[in-house]
């Protein structure tokens, strides 16, 4: 009797949960499904979720189409360098805030936090002006420096707490053994902060890899495009060839998945960390 009541109560709950899951992933299933349909079938009516004759034609065509591999390389270059810069410079800045006492410390930190509140898009017009003045338009470096600058405040904030929580005794011991401050930072503080750094790395990489608006604004030269911009213009050029566009998107997801899998063993909780600015 008790068992029965339990069943009748939980089964509807699971049905609801599954229904919710379908709503959450259906658009992605639809996208994947259409990527596997050779182009003729994409505007089929009525639509079919399971492709009748699945084919990799779209993936091959997307990968070998105009400059796609170049865009892939551009995106990889930009995402890797800006992620490395973000992680290293944020960690160094956060460490300074966490470990040293100096004049103006809280003032600088407060300015950073205030700027953090202002969404990036607000300053896109003056950023364009700055990039133009410094000759950084139409250059991948012009993307990298702005991506790093945009990520430093948030990650400094996140990492500061992490470094503050590290035991000082270890540092004192290393100092006695003759290690300098940079030695302590790179050989002890950074390795100890690995889980936090992994989180920062994942979300920076994700953000830099996906960034669209600044890349669209700063770059006119078709050879300097990154993947998100290229994929969007792909949709424009190929009008109704959605299968091709979706295949390109799925290829663009591969590096993100790789980074996730590679770093997930360090990755402790905090799934909401990156959701702040995005």
């Amino acid at each position: 009797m008790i068992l029965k009541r339990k069943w009748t109560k939980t089964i509807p709950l699971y049905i609801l949960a599954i229904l919710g899951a379908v709503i959450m992933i259906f658009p992605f299933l639809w996208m994947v499904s259409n990527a596997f349909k050779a182009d003729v079938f994409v505007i089929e009516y009525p639509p079919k979720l399971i492709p009748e004759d699945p084919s990799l034609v779209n993936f091959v065509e997307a990968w070998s189409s105009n400059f796609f591999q170049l865009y892939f390389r551009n995106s990889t270059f930009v995402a890797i360098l800006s992620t490395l810069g973000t992680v290293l410079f944020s960690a160094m800045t956060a460490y300074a805030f966490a470990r040293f006492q100096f004049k103006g410390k809280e003032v600088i930190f407060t300015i950073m936090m205030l700027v953090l509140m202002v969404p990036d898009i607000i300053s896109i017009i003056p950023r364009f002006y700055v990039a133009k003045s410094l000759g950084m338009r139409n250059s991948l470096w012009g993307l990298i420096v702005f991506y790093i600058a945009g990520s430093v405040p948030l990650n400094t904030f996140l990492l500061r707490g992490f470094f503050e929580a590290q035991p000082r005794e270890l540092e004192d011991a290393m100092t006695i053994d003759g290690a300098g401050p940079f030695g302590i930072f790179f050989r002890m503080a950074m390795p100890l902060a690995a889980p936090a750094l992994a989180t920062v790395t994942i979300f920076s990489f994700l953000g830099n890899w996906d960034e669209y608006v600044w890349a669209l604004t700063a770059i006119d030269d078709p050879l300097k495009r990154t993947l998100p911009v290229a994929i969007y213009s792909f949709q424009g050029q190929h009008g109704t060839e959605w299968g091709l566009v979706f295949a390109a998107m799925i290829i663009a997801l591969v590096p993100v998945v790789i980074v996730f899998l590679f770093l997930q063993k360090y990755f402790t909780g905090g799934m909401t960390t990156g959701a702040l600015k995005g």
Partner: protein
Amino acid sequence: MLFSHKTQKRILPFLFMLPGLIFFFVFQLFPLIKGFQISFYDWQLLPGRVSEFIGFDNYLRAFQDQVFWRAFKNTLVYTLVTVPGQMILGMLAALLLTSLPKGRGIFRAIYYIPVITSWLIVSLVIRYLFQSPQGLVNYFLVEVFHIVDEPIAWLRQAKTAFVPILILGVWKGIGWNMVIYIAALLGIPSELKEAAAIDGANGWQRFWYITVPLISPTLVFTLVMLLIGGFNVFISVYLITGGGPMQQTEVMLSYAYHQAFDFLDFGYGAALSYIMAVLIVFLSVLQLKFLRKPQEI
């Protein structure tokens, strides 16, 4: 030794901060300040042309600009629809998943997928689903459920073009709210609910009189974050409708962007951005005031 020990100690923190601060000041803080200056000019981008200082003209112009008010209204509509929509559905999802005896983790991960997917991907997929006449949404409305006789030209008419943007805004944010609410719900001691149940409170009463007051800091936190996010709406509008048809679906930031980069009116675009920035900073300050320690960052 190049410097005395004391000097070394004094410059050491700045050595650590130098790269981060240079990037921050040059590419983040300076543009923000520069943008404020630009908003007071009839800014000329082309070399050789002189930018003229025009005081508050760009700001005054905004208040007489019909499209500005429409963009403002659309931004408000977006916020007023997507914020409660995300909170309610996120809460329902959290309540549902916390009451599952098994498999919570899997569902949590699935519900979170839209949150981490880039706006570009979801915007393009939404555009695809709402195509006319042969999009999937039209297929369901016309052929499966027979709600309408003719396919709706979603993105081509002013009345309906904003609907996909609203749906996307709610759908993409449910998972974010859910994850935060689950954490909050699990933090409530179960004795409290059991005691209330023994006293005869039904499910709704237990939720309203026990759960909601206990997690109210979390609710306020998500509310403020979502309000800020709502005012920030830009990419989805830019990618799904481009503000069209005929600027009917412009929001504040898409209008600012179009002014700057389509009409090359940088001064006006900057002024529009700064009106938005003031609203957003105001909200952020409210948050800091009411919430000293947000539970989740």
